[in-house]
């Protein structure tokens, strides 16, 4: 019996209808595609009314197949599958074809766009006839969650879940949790002390009964899928017995080897070979840095080992792989600062009094290397004039095209701290001042009041090449004041570069491990930029904080909480649906050639020696279909993407191409033909 196909062409307001003649496409479907019994165009298919329309047509017109030509299936396939279900049709008898992202939005010529839309609809309608009803599979959700990254976003997510009674495994790469916020002195716009608001959260996480905290650890491998991920974590060797150490700090105090701390102190201060990055670190268990330790260098010293009251030092400790099973994963790996040496005209690394933002944070931090005194690198001179340069490595196609969002505010914060602490003249060089969150503009107004010189112009160079006597001994900032149109030179004592927030150095790598993708800039791609900003395209993996895109602390906290809420929802539901798109082998026709045997990266194909046939282990198969196209005998079936479906789709897509000639029946017979 022929199928009864319903075709629905969406206008998406004017998103589609503005370019594609949707009525014409619907007309084409009803007149030219076999078995189409209903073809309609409608303003918003995803609206309630749109969905109802599909439901009712299924019931009234007895549709057996549905095609929706609208946006990307990644957006609304679920919506329309639900509509089919509601109408009493198996949801897998729907096909969605994309005439918005792939058509109306990217083609200039309305005629060509309409023609392409017809082809796509034709392809979809031909395909859908071969689709088969499938039953979704459900799996239990493991209630434990993995959070990667212990910055403010990760901490918030961890606490939300743990407080709700769910187990969390938190993995942090560095020796302590806290992230970048732990390095700051004050936070804009309220200027509360960063440590005062952060450390309580840190210790709460450290002591929470529902949290398993793994610091100095990294994600090694993720397998499985939503509901049941299996995760391998590398616990790097601290060289300190975690359970024995009481955090007394004697080892740190007595260790004779001092090195520059490029991590927490951003190169502004020193630490020991065995160290806790900062006094409030969580956990309070030191890490021994084998690269600087005298024992590892030349088998001497052992001071720490000798003096440790609980004998917790373990020179022979090795990395360890810890395996955990979790149901969901939240990634909150934050950012890394822009490398300012990449803009040599700003002199960073060459001119002593040019600083990065993070360096300055440490410089004015009361717990920092100068105890909060703002002085030049000579350790004593208080700067009388300071230039703050915005957009260093941001809004610059040579580096990062995006706006880092927070640096204008951080620059204002610095200007305020400088005026407050040193009374210096502060020049702030900006392209645009971006202060678009609650109370931020007010903060800008306050700084205008405080007398900061705002110069509108992107700085051209920072140099020590003097031209005038008054420049001697100064660091000169050269720039066009674009408001007057004049080229100016500003001799100052100190320059601060507001470097961009960049994706973590290993963001792509980690993304690959978890199966999520990055934007062109390198930040993780959310499922929907407006409506689903903390989910990813991979079910069960969520993102929060700056790893999703530059943002400030409040926004990071919001995302941490949002991701936790999404995970909590999954846990409460207890079960999650898995697409039944899997491969299966027709064993009676398999000849056991074993070509397919090493096709599957998930080892989902096994060979039955006694019967000499291969078999797919459904639970392991992820439905990529690679084995399907490898089988020389064609006996592997790929559900929802089988050959007949794709062949029909190809045929449909080429409905307007010259048909193959010389097929019997249609052959230009010379008059001998029977019947």
């Amino acid at each position, binding site marked *: 019996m022929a199928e009864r196909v319903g075709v629905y062409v969406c206008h998406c307001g004017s998103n589609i209808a503005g370019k594609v003649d949707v009525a014409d496409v619907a007309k084409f479907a009803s007149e030219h595609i076999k078995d189409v019994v209903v073809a309609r165009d409608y303003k918003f298919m995803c609206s309630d009314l749109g969905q109802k329309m599909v439901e009712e047509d299924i019931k009234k017109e007895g549709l057996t197949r549905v095609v929706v030509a609208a946006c990307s299936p990644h957006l609304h396939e679920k919506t329309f599958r639900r509509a089919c279900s509601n109408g009493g049709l198996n949801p897998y008898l729907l096909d969605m074809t994309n005439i918005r992202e792939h058509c109306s939005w990217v083609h200039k010529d309305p005629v060509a766009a309409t023609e392409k839309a017809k082809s796509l609809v034709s392809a979809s309608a031909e395909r859908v006839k071969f689709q088969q009803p499938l039953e979704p599979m459900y799996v239990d959700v493991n209630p434990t969650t993995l959070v990667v990254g212990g910055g403010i976003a990760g901490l918030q997510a961890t606490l939300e879940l743990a407080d709700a009674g769910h187990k969390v495994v938190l993995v942090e790469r560095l020796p302590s949790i806290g992230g970048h916020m732990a390095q700051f002195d004050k936070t804009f716009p309220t200027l509360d002390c960063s440590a005062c608001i952060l450390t309580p959260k840190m210790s709460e996480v450290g002591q929470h009964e529902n949290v398993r905290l793994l610091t100095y650890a990294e994600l090694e491998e993720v397998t499985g899928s939503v509901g049941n991920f299996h995760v391998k974590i590398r616990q790097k060797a601290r060289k300190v017995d975690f359970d024995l150490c009481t955090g007394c700090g004697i080892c740190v105090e007595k260790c004779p080897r001092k090195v520059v701390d490029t991590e927490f102190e951003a190169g502004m201060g020193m630490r020991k070979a065995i160290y806790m990055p900062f006094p409030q670190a969580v956990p309070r268990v030191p890490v021994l840095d084998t690269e600087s330790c005298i024992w590892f260098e030349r088998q001497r010293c052992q001071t720490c080992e000798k003096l440790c009251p609980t004998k917790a030092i373990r020179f022979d400790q090795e990395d360890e792989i810890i395996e955990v099973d979790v149901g969901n994963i939240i990634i909150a790996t934050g950012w890394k600062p822009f490398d300012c040496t990449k*803009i040599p*005209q700003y002199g960073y690394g060459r001119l002593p009094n040019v600083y990065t933002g993070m360096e300055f944070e440490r410089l004015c931090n009361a717990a920092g290397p100068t105890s909060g005194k703002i002085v030049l690198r000579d350790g004593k001179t208080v700067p009388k004039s300071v230039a703050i340069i915005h957009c260093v490595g941001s809004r610059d196609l040579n580096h990062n095209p995006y706006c880092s969002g927070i640096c204008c505010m951080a620059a204002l914060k610095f200007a305020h701290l400088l005026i407050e602490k040193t009374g210096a003249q502060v020049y702030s060089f900006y392209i645009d001042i971006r202060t678009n969150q609650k109370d931020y503009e007010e903060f800008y107004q306050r700084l205008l009041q405080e007398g900061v010189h705002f110069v509108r112009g992107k700085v051209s160079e920072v140099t020590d090449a003097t*031209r005038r006597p008054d420049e001697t001994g100064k660091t000169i900032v050269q720039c066009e004041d674009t408001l007057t149109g004049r080229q100016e030179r500003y001799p100052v004592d100190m320059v601060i570069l507001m470097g961009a927030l960049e994706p973590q150095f290993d963001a792509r790598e980690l993304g690959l491990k978890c199966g999520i993708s990055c934007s062109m800039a390198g930040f993780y791609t959310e499922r929907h930029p407006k409506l689903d900003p903390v989910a990813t395209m991979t079910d069960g993996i969520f993102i929060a904080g700056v790893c999703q895109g530059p943002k400030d602390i409040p926004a990071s906290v919001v995302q941490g909480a949002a991701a936790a809420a999404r995970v909590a929802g999954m846990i409460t539901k207890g079960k999650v649906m898995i697409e039944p798109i899997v491969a299966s082998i027709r064993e009676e026709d398999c000849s056991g050639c074993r070509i397919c045997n090493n096709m599957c990266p998930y080892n989902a194909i096994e060979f039955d020696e006694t019967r000499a046939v291969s078999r797919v282990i459904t639970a392991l198969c992820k439905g990529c279909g690679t084995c399907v196209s490898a089988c020389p005998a064609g006996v592997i079936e790929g559900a929802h993407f089988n050959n007949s479906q794709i062949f029909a789709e190809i045929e449909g897509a080429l409905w307007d191409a010259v048909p193959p000639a010389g097929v019997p029946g249609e052959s230009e017979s010379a008059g001998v033909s029977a019947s």
Partner: protein
Amino acid sequence: MKYAYYPGCSLEAGSAAYDVSVRAVAKVLGFELEELDDWNCCGATEYFSQDELVATSVIARNLAICRPDQKELIAPCAACFLNLKKTDQLMAEHSEVRSKVNEALAAGGLHYDPGQVRVRHLLDLIYTDIGEAALREKIKQPLTGLRVAPYYGCQVVRPMNGFDNTEYPMKMDELFTWLGAEVVDYPVKAHCCGGHMTQISEGAAYELIRRLLDSAVEHEADLILCMCPMCQLNLDAYQALVSSYFQKNFQMPIIFFTQLLGVALGLDFETVKIGKEIVSAGPVIKAKLGAAPSQTGA
């Protein structure tokens, strides 16, 4: 090692010292420069102000007449280097440029596919292909005690040199450190010498030259090393005029880096044409390096 060599008009005439010293140095260092047969002027900056396509076509002729075995073309002059390189790149990136230039070339029976010839600057060749070890081996007269200011100028390092930093190049600095000289951290090393401004607004031009000379004086350099004929001409020949314009008394010798490199390799002054500059470099070199076998000429 064999390279095609594009000396350019300046090296044929006013800056013969550059040409001669390059060839002399090549002999000592053991690489061969084969002059491109029948090359024509690169048009400097002037053609681009008149007709973009004529400019690129005139330049492209030089690339097109390279033999198939001439895969690397060495240009010592900054303007020539930039123009050749820029044309190659424009042709590679813009298909329109590619087809139009080739249409023009076809009128002369020529054709050029971008990427066919790799245009390189002499400094790149010496720094990269010869390298530190080989150079150190060949030093006859270490430059110990001589304070040099390496001056790169604009057009070699910007915008597409492909071998050094565009803002703060270091390759010449390193080269002369290997040779034993005291290389000053010359902050204006990639600033502008004024180019042809001397002919357009002398006030503006002299100011640019002054900044370069002042900075060298401030850093107590004995001499400035150039790698472009225009820079050398502006800093050297105009030095007296600049002095009188600003009521200063500049006495800063300006020579091509290959000339001093030659001295370090044991060549005498005459061989590397020290003495062709207007502000003499010979005396200060002699004074700083003391008696050495190389100091027969001058």
